């Protein structure tokens, strides 16, 4: 029987002890004697969130297929256990073996959102690994960062030994081989890092240095070691049918956020919304073969026993074989009482038909993401969804029996004026009006239109990376304008408006486009007690403000100025395939309110066509 790292006294007094015991169905145990590399894969948030992440399941499966490698999982202990571990000096451990993380060869951290940065420090700290890469000895695991936030790794540069830029399926094998060779040859930690830096896609922050101009912007950013490349190239899987996929995903004992089989149908998005980082990072759009997907779906349902399957992609409606796949799933699942969930579907006749087959119309709500209220604003962000699309889709849905609609918007977008803000309420009201056009005897009581807005945060590698943000007070004022506009609407009793917290927005903005100097503030915030910043009950804005103050990091410098056309960005040394010229061109078109066609309509020359794959070669071979 496995021995647990925590004793019964502790496990019985904390919340949800099952977060820490491992041993779940399909988790992988290996014989320590047959292993020469131990890899701890971390999602720096609580178990239920981390276990819901597809990327980790893919990498966990990939590593554990490798001979000699044992990949285990580790998540952030919740605040209750965090306190106990600190008090009793219990080192953080991996779920499978329950061995201390400190004894591993690698600690890989997937960095999915900015608000988990202090949790990364928590994981290092509880593991007994020095927070600063520069202070780590030969006995420490190599700390690797990956995931979307690794595309601007600079705020975290001091805490990681290396970053993996790109899709995980590509160069890990090479990295592990270099590690083994270095160990065989008696090389040091630094020798390994220098060798690793030569692998395409690997960025070793300690081998680069930045200088700054008087105005605070970057003057230069260069490698400090010969043989280390000045540009780090994103790694991308070009043949999606040849990559591995977890046929036996882990089945948690406790209910997690994503308690279902997740089928990734494609990577990337053809749409080119100008605020969307994922839409640029994962270009070109690459579909998985529909026959392979059917097989994966069958295997994963068999091996997990899950009662639900969900499709995953940035825009499922753009998957060319969607109809075939969905019909297959309906046939396969309905008799077995398995639910199908279809997120990110465009609302049209086909999707409404499918949804009416797979869910209870009366209970479910429809979701539209117009992102902006006015057509002018939607053109600026290149969201190719018109008012007519929304009203037609909503109309069809209402006729089909739905009466709940959710609308998602962003506030604080570039060029936004008061009319654009008010247009959010007007659009919501038009949707409600469309509902009340249906004769009373044919509709299902009142409708419920819920509009939510978040504040726009410019992200690296998007056309809006030059855009300015606003102060906390300004965000609140904008939300108030929308709130008032809702009160003026005819159907205000059927409308609801919620907005996202402004303080978190400000912080996320600094972390998203920050440089190395921002790292000092993150460290200070952590030392003053910040963790689980993504959880509103734990988020302490005052502490963060103090940390910025103390470390001399000026929020306004990062958030409240439009960046110049020639400014060197902290992330410019990374080549994601999409060129800065293309992004700049898109920024300029945005300023003129010009839309850009999607990848299937017309190639706009973003730069990734050089890889000759995915949507770039569709219909061309």
């Amino acid at each position, binding site marked *: 029987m*496995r021995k647990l790292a925590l004793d019964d*006294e502790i496990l019985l007094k904390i919340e949800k*002890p099952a977060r820490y015991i491992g041993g*779940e169905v399909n988790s992988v145990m290996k014989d320590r004697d047959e292993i020469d590399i131990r890899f701890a894969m971390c999602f720096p948030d609580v178990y239920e969130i981390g276990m819901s992440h597809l990327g980790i399941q893919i990498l966990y499966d990939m590593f554990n297929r490798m001979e000699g490698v044992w990949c285990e999982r580790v998540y952030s202990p919740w605040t209750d256990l965090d306190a106990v571990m600190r008090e009793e000096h219990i080192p953080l451990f991996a779920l499978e073996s329950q061995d201390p993380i400190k004894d591993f060869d690698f600690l890989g951290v997937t960095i999915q959102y900015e608000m988990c940065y202090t949790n990364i420090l928590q994981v290092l700290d509880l593991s007994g690994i020095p927070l600063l890469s520069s202070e780590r000895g030969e006995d420490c695991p190599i700390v690797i960062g990956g995931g979307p936030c690794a595309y601007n790794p600079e705020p975290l540069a001091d805490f990681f030994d290396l970053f993996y830029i790109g899709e995980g399926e590509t160069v890990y094998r090479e990295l592990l081989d270099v590690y083994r060779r270095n160990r065989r040859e008696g090389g040091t930690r630094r020798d390994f890092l220098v060798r690793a830096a030569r692998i395409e896609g690997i960025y070793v922050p300690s081998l680069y240095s930045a200088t700054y101009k008087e105005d605070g912007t970057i003057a230069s950013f260069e490698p400090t070691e010969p043989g280390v490349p000045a540009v780090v190239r994103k790694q991308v899987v070009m043949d999606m049918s040849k990559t591995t996929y977890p046929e036996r995903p882990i089945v948690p*004992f406790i209910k997690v956020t994503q308690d279902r089989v997740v089928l990734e149908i494609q990577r990337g998005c053809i749409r080119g919304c100008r605020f969307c980082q994922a839409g640029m990072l994962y270009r070109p759009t690459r579909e998985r073969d529909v026959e392979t997907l059917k097989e994966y779906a069958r295997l994963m349902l068999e091996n997990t026993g*899950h*009662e639900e399957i969900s499709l995953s992609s940035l825009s499922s409606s753009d998957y060319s074989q969607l109809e075939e796949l969905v019909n297959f799933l309906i046939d396969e699942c309905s008799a*077995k*009482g398995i639910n199908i969930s279809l997120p990110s579907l465009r609302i049209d006749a086909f999707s409404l038909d499918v949804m009416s087959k797979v869910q209870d119309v009366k209970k479910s709500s429809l979701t539209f993401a117009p992102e902006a209220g006015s057509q002018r604003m939607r053109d600026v962000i290149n969201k190719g969804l018109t008012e007519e699309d929304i009203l037609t889709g909503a109309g069809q849905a209402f006729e089909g029996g739905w009466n709940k609609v959710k609308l998602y918007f962003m506030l604080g977008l570039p060029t936004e004026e008061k009319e654009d803000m008010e247009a959010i309420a007007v659009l919501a009201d038009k949707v409600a009006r469309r509902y009340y056009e249906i004769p009373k005897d044919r509709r299902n009581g009142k409708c419920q239109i819920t509009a939510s807005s978040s504040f726009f945060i410019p992200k690296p590698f998007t056309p809006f990376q030059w855009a300015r943000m606003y102060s906390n007070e300004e965000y609140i004022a904008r939300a108030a304008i929308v709130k008032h506009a809702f009160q003026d609407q005819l159907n205000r009793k059927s409308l609801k408006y919620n907005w996202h917290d402004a303080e978190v927005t400000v912080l996320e903005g600094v972390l998203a486009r920050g440089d190395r100097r921002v790292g000092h503030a993150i460290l200070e915030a952590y030392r003053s007690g910040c963790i689980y910043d993504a959880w509103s009950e734990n988020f302490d804005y005052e502490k963060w403000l103090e940390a910025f103050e103390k470390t001399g990091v000026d929020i306004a410098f990062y958030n409240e100025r439009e960046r110049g056309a020639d400014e060197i960005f902290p992330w410019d040394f990374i080549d994601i395939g999409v060129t800065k010229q293309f992004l700049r061109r898109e920024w300029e078109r945005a300023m003129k309110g010009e839309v850009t066609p999607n990848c299937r309509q017309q190639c706009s020359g973003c730069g990734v066509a050089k890889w000759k794959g995915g949507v770039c070669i569709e219909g061309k071979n």
Partner: protein
Amino acid sequence: MKVRIKFRKYGILRFIGHLDVMRYFQKAMRRACIPIAFTGGYSPHMIMSFAQPLGIGLTSDGEYMDIELTESIPSDRAVEALNAVMTEGMEVVSFRQISDDKKSSGMTIVAAADYLVTVRGTDTVAAFWREKLEDFLAQPSVLVMKKTKRSEKEMDIRPLIYQAAVTENGLFLKLAAGSADNLKPDLVMDAFYDWAGMSREPLHFHRLELFARTEDGFITLEDAGHAIR
């Protein structure tokens, strides 16, 4: 047809709560391809009911659930199929057909439960148990404060202790269980420690078996069913 499944819950699975055990078995039924019946309606769910939830931290050799099948499957094959998809900490012991009669299934028939109590982490008993158990049981009544969701009330638990004895493996308890009178072993031990003037140390509770009442006394829930061939 109705089937009763007996299973063991041990090792690390003592940290999995009752609702999660249900979720665990719903998924296990699918993995093992057991022809289980579903309720009707828009969101059908498996017809599955558990006897007597086991609290977090307890282990058990005698857990039960009743399910309904759409077609018959031999007991030995079902046990094998289920155990092939179990994780360490869960083991299916038997799979038996029970009467279709409503009164014979589910929580309602549970009348008693056997437990084994040990000092946590030792597999042994505390010295005073052996010396004082007899006197403790000789009391005409054992009054304890029982907390409910709304209030606290005093009750006599002595009549609900059917049997108690110190054995080689620990303190054996046979207690009233089920929806009518239910006595948790934890409450018994609290009362025993209080009465003996000892301060409570961490204990481990292991459930051995669940019983239904018949005219001739108790029978295990398992014995109420018969093997499917």
